[in-house]
């Protein structure tokens, strides 16, 4: 009798175990569900590719508070007068047409045990796999005297949709006025971004306010594409830009939004426009979900962008601590495709190919003076590792620089179509 029971018990357990294994592919209650938090470069791409490639086999829901997305990429060109604000705006209609359910709300929390995402507007979304691509948050107190509440007076222009305030300030500068940028410490989104911005501010001022001055307080010894930017600044904007590196106190700053003053290494500078780009960390929801390390970023496995804290959660783009890739829109888009393939494979059994990542970042120094940097990456057990790279050279002829700029226009059209359909 007891033998009989235990054998029944054994058989039962076996059946339950095999049912568990098969569960992802044969869900009794319907299709597998993917929830994506954040409809930017990483999240929009991941949602679109999973919906497109699973051909309806997976239910994809994208959570994004904003009805439209303004790319940060090319927002410097907007400041320089090369793009309109409207040309940076993208809607989610293409994603919806492609089978993604878009919920315009803020994700306020993640219950990883219950596998649900809580929405700020109430209710929750269950998931089988969760993908986070929430972008960045600023590290509070990293620029003494500044908090996000001061962004109206001293804008950062470093999150989606926030660059118009900065442009307005630059346009309103008095003749011969001073523009100050507080540059961020590593790591931060878009390594050449602050320096492309300096170039574009200089371009705008050169036309309208040629005696204006630009001051950059920078905590970093070196920065991305430095030789190229410095060559370009000397050529196009001689005498206009001064960068104070850490050796001269560029990392020792305080700002006074009330009086529009910046204190650099004890010296008070009266400014007409101040662009504060603080230190950065993963978007808030990553920490709320318990996915971040002490660094403030979310560690991931390179092969599939899954969180090191939870195999059912993936983190993409700027928020991820992945290794060698820069925090760029191109990188987020590249990671999203690797992640989409892995998630689809896990939920539907579709074929998973080895991960491959790439990145190219173009920057504009002046009209038709474009430069680029790029690299290939592969997944290693430790991180996303760079394998090969290139960078534009100083002294390149004008025709090549113009062509490089034109390439960036093609890239912008390509990546935004790839993100939003």
């Amino acid at each position, binding site marked *: 009798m007891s033998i009989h029971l235990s054998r029944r018990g054994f058989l039962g357990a076996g059946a339950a175990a095999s049912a568990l294994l098969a569960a992802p592919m044969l869900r009794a209650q319907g299709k597998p569900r993917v929830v994506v938090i954040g409809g930017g470069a990483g999240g929009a791409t991941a949602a679109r*590719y999973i919906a497109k490639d699973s051909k309806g086999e997976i239910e994809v829901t994208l959570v994004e508070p904003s009805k439209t997305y303004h790319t940060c990429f090319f927002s410097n060109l907007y400041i320089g007068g090369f793009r309109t604000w409207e040309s940076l705006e993208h809607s989610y209609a293409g994603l919806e047409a492609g089978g993604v359910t878009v919920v315009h709300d803020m994700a306020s929390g993640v219950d990883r045990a219950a596998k649900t995402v809580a929405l700020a507007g109430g209710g929750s979304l269950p998931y089988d796999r969760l993908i986070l691509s929430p972008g960045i948050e600023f590290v509070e107190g990293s620029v003494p005297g500044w908090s996000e509440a001061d962004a109206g007076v001293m804008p950062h222009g470093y999150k989606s949709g926030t660059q118009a305030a900065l442009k307005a300030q630059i346009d309103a500068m008095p003749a011969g006025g001073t523009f100050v940028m507080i540059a961020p410490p590593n790591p931060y989104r878009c390594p050449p971004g602050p320096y492309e911005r300096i170039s574009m501010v200089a371009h705008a001022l050169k036309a309208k306010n040629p005696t204006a001055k630009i001051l950059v307080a920078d905590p970093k010894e070196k920065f991305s594409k430095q030789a190229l930017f410095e060559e370009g600044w000397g050529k196009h904007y001689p005498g206009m830009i001064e960068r104070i590196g850490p050796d001269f106190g560029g990392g020792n700053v305080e700002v006074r939004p009330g009086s529009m003053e910046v204190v650099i290494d004890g010296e008070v500078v009266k400014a007409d426009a101040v662009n504060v780009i603080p230190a950065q960390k993963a978007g808030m929801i990553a920490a709320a979900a318990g996915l971040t390390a002490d660094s403030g970023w979310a560690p991931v496995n390179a092969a599939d962008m899954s969180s090191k804290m939870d195999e059912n959660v993936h983190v993409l783009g700027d928020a991820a601590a992945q290794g060698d890739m820069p925090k760029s829109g*191109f990188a987020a*888009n*590249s990671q999203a*495709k690797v992640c989409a*393939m892995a998630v689809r494979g896990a939920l539907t059994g579709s074929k998973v*190919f080895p991960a*491959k990542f*790439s990145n*190219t970042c173009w920057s504009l120094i002046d009209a038709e003076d474009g430069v*680029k940097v*790029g*690299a*290939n990456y592969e997944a290693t057990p430790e991180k996303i590792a760079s394998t*090969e*790279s*290139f960078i534009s050279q100083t002294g390149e*002829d004008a*025709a*090549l620089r*113009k*062509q490089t*700029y*034109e*390439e*960036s*226009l*093609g*890239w912008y*059209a*390509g*990546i935004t*179509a*790839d993100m939003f359909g």
Partner: protein
Amino acid sequence: MTRLALALLLALAAPASADRAQVAAGEAAFRKCASCHKIGPGAKHATGPHLNGVFGRKAGALEDFRYSPDIVRMGNDGLVWDYEKLHLYLENPKTLVSGTRMNFRGVRDEAERAAIIAFLRAYSDKPSDIPESAPTNPGGDPQVAAAILAIQGDPDYGEYLSGECVTCHQVDGADEGIPSITGWNEDDFVTALHAYRAKHRANPAMQLVAARLSDEEIAGLAAFFAKID
């Protein structure tokens, strides 16, 4: 240029008689080219640009000739007409410039190409500054082998791989700053990617992309993009 002037020029530039024989053979072979290209003092553009001083010049760089956008792009990327590149271009123009307007099947015979190049070299600005042949063999057989062109690409695999391409190249075929890659002839597509992989083509971003693609993957991409109009 008169024969005498050419003889003088050659006497200065290329003393060895073997070279003279090669240049003479090249002059004869150049008849294939002469319906479109003029060369010699006072040579003007015709269907193709004149070829005086072509050796060592950036591709697509003569201001008063209307080139294909593609050859200008390649020139800006770094295509310079040296010994190796002339060999590649003469063998199959599409190796280096997919959208070239030079409607020419190419010269398969290596000795004949070398002769034409020796002839072009004689009309360069300073022939004596140009090595008579590339110091090393220019990359073995540059031509994409027939066996590689014959690989049947899997368009489904190509579609998966295309994720890497469409971050920059638009699937709707728009050609804005970055060339369109949809609706191509598959052989041209394969030839172009192999040329990037072999670093015969200079665009660094494309070299990186191609470096990681196998022959089968290139065939798959060619098959996939060929289907898109």
